[in-house]
């Protein structure tokens, strides 16, 4: 083994070791209705799931199971107006806890993601379970990566042979490179189709009826046209060979375009630019590396003036190819990777680093050819051939890495939806900054994450023990609960619990205990739906009344008499649909953060003295009816 091939092998092994072993989610679940862990008062008509990529409704399954494993969905998942969302209608659900078990096949790349979460209907939210959400993504299969590698490698050879034939730096009849490219791309397409069929767990007929299958058919058609061009170039007269090879090259580029359009470049934001960029990347690799393969096949034997001319024509083209590959590759990487963490910690990022290393090595060999091999072309072609073989070996490895990249979800598509609740605060002594996030803004089981940093240096606080103390501000009669968090990744502390039992305002005291000290950071947030639009009645000469539907059922009518800034009186009445007054056992009325002292006026009516400020005042009401139900509502009142 020569020193150069040893270096190339070492580089390849290093890149393989650097490649990812775990998969990020492809069509990751972003949002759902009902939300994971939701405790609903009434049964939903449908479950709607929204993903990070378009999901194939035909190949995907969504099941809604009760505790006994019985299914409650009414038909298969249906597409919605949003191509990233699927909806499954439900039969009427009795009260109980349900598990949504979903398995999604991405319409973008045919990859599968599965997961589950639970929600409750008409029962205690604490019974939904602490673990509210799971997601499983199988790692990319070697079979699929092989299919992608062969397909793209074959197309690269076809483009290169076509360009060489059309631009006169290779065999005008295509030669072995064109036939090899045709054969390899056809095998690659068949392997990829079979791998995607296995991923989806469907028959070929079923698969071909989807967007994933149609993209396979279009690629097959383009390869068939390229094949016709190659055949024509071999059999027709000399004058027709170059146009035939040009047709083969264009058809191979069309196959590349379809391949790109059925990949992640066409799934995220700025689709047109990213698709064009990815296609130009592949096409440039075809002209550069496929062209080099065709050139090397063409300049076999002794040196000659014609061969030297062909090499110089290719060299001019290769510089353009290298420039396009570098620019478009950079554009794609910058689009998909948003932080250094995504470069180093994700499989996709590591694969891109491996590819950059290989491209850099190829570029060094290309530079060597330009500065050392080109000046001696007339006397010896051996240095050029030797270095070019190394370039082609590394290019094969780079295409293998590209095939792995095509099988992985970019971090951009694997990013989950931002947390529903995100609040920050600091302790009085300004030693620690705390950021608390919660996965759901609804009452019920939730996942909490705390990041604690030193106030000045912004370094993560640790080692520490972190716990949360939950105080329901609208329910002062409910005792606080505590949740201890465990250390998670990247200095965060995480924990799951059903502590946010009710909708309304909550204060969470984040306790951070270190070796000899502790600090408490209070943060506040709202849980539940945004402020409903009240129905306002302004009787002539009388005080206005605001009526809102309360969570927990019924209606609350809030009357401010008189409606003015300063001292006033707030009257709250509870009634049902009829409307009949609902007897209330206890009522808490708040204005902003102040809890008012309430006085019962009638069965379902309470009054409280209040002081309103000019502008917007939020009046919150929590009641306990005599039959134990909790009602909650708030109204925003503009005081002139």
């Amino acid at each position, binding site marked *: 083994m020569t020193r150069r091939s040893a270096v190339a092998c070492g580089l390849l092994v290093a890149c393989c070791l650097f490649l990812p072993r775990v998969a990020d989610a492809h069509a990751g679940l972003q949002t759902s209705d009902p939300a994971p862990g939701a405790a609903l008062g009434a049964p939903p008509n449908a479950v709607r799931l929204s993903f990070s990529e378009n999901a194939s409704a035909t190949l995907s399954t969504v099941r809604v199971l009760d505790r006994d494993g019985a299914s409650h969905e009414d038909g298969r998942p249906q597409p919605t107006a949003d191509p990233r969302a699927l909806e499954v209608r439900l039969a009427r659900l009795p009260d109980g806890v349900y598990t949504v078990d979903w398995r999604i096949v991405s319409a973008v790349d045919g990859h599968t993601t599965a997961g589950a979460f639970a929600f409750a209907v008409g029962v205690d939210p604490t019974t939904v379970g602490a673990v509210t959400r799971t997601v499983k993504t199988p790692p990319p299969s070697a079979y699929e990566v092989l299919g992608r590698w062969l397909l793209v490698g074959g197309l690269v050879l076809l483009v290169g042979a076509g360009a060489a034939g059309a631009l006169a730096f290779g065999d005008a009849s295509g030669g072995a490179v064109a036939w090899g490219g045709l054969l390899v791309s056809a095998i690659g397409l068949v392997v990829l189709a079979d791998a995607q069929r296995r991923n989806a767990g469907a028959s070929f007929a079923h698969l071909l009826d989807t967007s994933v299958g149609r993209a396979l058919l279009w690629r097959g058609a383009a390869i068939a046209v390229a094949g016709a061009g190659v055949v024509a170039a071999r059999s027709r007269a000399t004058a027709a060979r170059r146009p035939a090879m040009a047709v083969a090259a264009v058809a191979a580029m069309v196959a590349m375009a379809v391949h790109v359009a059925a990949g992640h470049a066409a799934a995220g934001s700025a689709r047109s630019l990213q698709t064009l960029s990815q296609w130009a990347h592949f096409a440039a690799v075809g002209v550069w590396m496929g062209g080099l393969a065709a050139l090397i096949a063409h300049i076999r034997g002794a040196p000659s003036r014609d061969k030297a001319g062909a090499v110089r024509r290719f060299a001019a083209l290769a510089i353009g190819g290298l420039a396009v590959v570098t620019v478009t590759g950079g554009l794609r990487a910058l689009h998909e990777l948003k932080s250094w963490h995504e470069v180093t910690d994700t499989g996709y990022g590591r694969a891109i680093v491996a590819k950059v290393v290989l491209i850099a090595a190829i570029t060094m060999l290309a530079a060597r050819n330009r500065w050392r091999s080109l000046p001696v072309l007339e006397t010896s072609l051996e240095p050029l051939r030797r270095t070019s073989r190394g370039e082609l070996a590394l290019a094969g490895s780079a295409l293998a890495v590209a095939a792995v990249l095509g099988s992985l979800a970019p971090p951009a598509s694997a990013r989950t939806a931002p947390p529903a609740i995100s609040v920050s605060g600091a302790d009085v002594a300004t030693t620690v900054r705390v950021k608390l996030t919660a996965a759901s803004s609804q009452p019920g089981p939730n996942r909490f994450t705390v990041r604690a940093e030193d106030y000045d240096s912004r370094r993560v606080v640790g080692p520490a023990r972190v716990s949360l103390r939950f105080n329901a501000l609208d329910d002062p009669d409910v005792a606080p609960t505590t949740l201890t968090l465990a250390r998670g990744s990247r200095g965060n502390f995480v924990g799951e619990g059903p502590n946010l039992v009710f909708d309304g305002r909550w204060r969470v005291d984040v306790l951070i205990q270190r070796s000899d000290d502790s600090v408490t950071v209070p943060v506040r947030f709202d849980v539940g739906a945004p402020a409903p639009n009240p129905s306002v009645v302004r009787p002539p000469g009388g005080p206005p009344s605001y009526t809102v539907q309360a969570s927990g059922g019924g209606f609350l009518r809030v009357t401010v008499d008189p409606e003015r800034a300063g001292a006033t009186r707030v009257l709250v009445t509870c009634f*049902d649909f009829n409307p009949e007054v609902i007897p209330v056992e206890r009522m808490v009325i708040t204005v902003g953060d102040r809890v008012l002292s309430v006085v019962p006026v009638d069965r379902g009516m309470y009054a409280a003295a209040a002081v309103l400020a000019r502008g917007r005042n939020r009046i919150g009401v929590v009641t306990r009816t005599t039959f134990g139900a909790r009602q909650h509502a708030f109204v925003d009142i503009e005081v002139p």
Partner: protein
Amino acid sequence: MDTRERYVAWQAAGVRRAVCAFVVAIALSLTWPASAHETKQVGALTMTIGWGEEPAYSGLTNSIDVTFANADAMPVVDAAGALTVEIAFGTERNTVSLLPGGRPGLYQAKFVPTRSGTYSFRVAGKIAGLAIDTTSTCSSQSFDCVTDVAAIQFPAKDPASGELLTRLDREQARADRSARNAKNAVRIAVAAVAVAVVALVVAARRGRRAS
């Protein structure tokens, strides 16, 4: 669905909600930390340990209450007993004596927990001829951990003196850092002005030479 049917459906939903609320209340009462002491068997004796005042708040005087009872549930009184309790908070340790309290079988060690968080008590020594060495840690299954006193302050929530001192130290350090940065900025500015003057002189000389 007419109004009557809607009303019946709503009333049925009300009953369901009532049942749901009841279950929630029961579940909450089971999951909330109990204001309780921890009871454990130490040899032939039953030991109970917890705070004198529960819930325990930082900055408020409290005590560690330990009681011993024999197999007949009678309090164990041992005036000659020598018991200590080691209070642990993180890596901090402090050992104090357990002294007989206000009723038979009760032993107390008064102290002020100055920080919120998790405390451990290690009771060691001899009582009624029995050597004991046992550790209890606050948790939802034993006795309360210490909560920030701000939770019960009204009408204003005043910072603790420790917090104010730490804040002063922090602000002092920030002020010192700002002063250092200002001094460095002045030095850099002076150096920049000097370089600019030299550059002007050189440019003027070259200009004169060129003309």
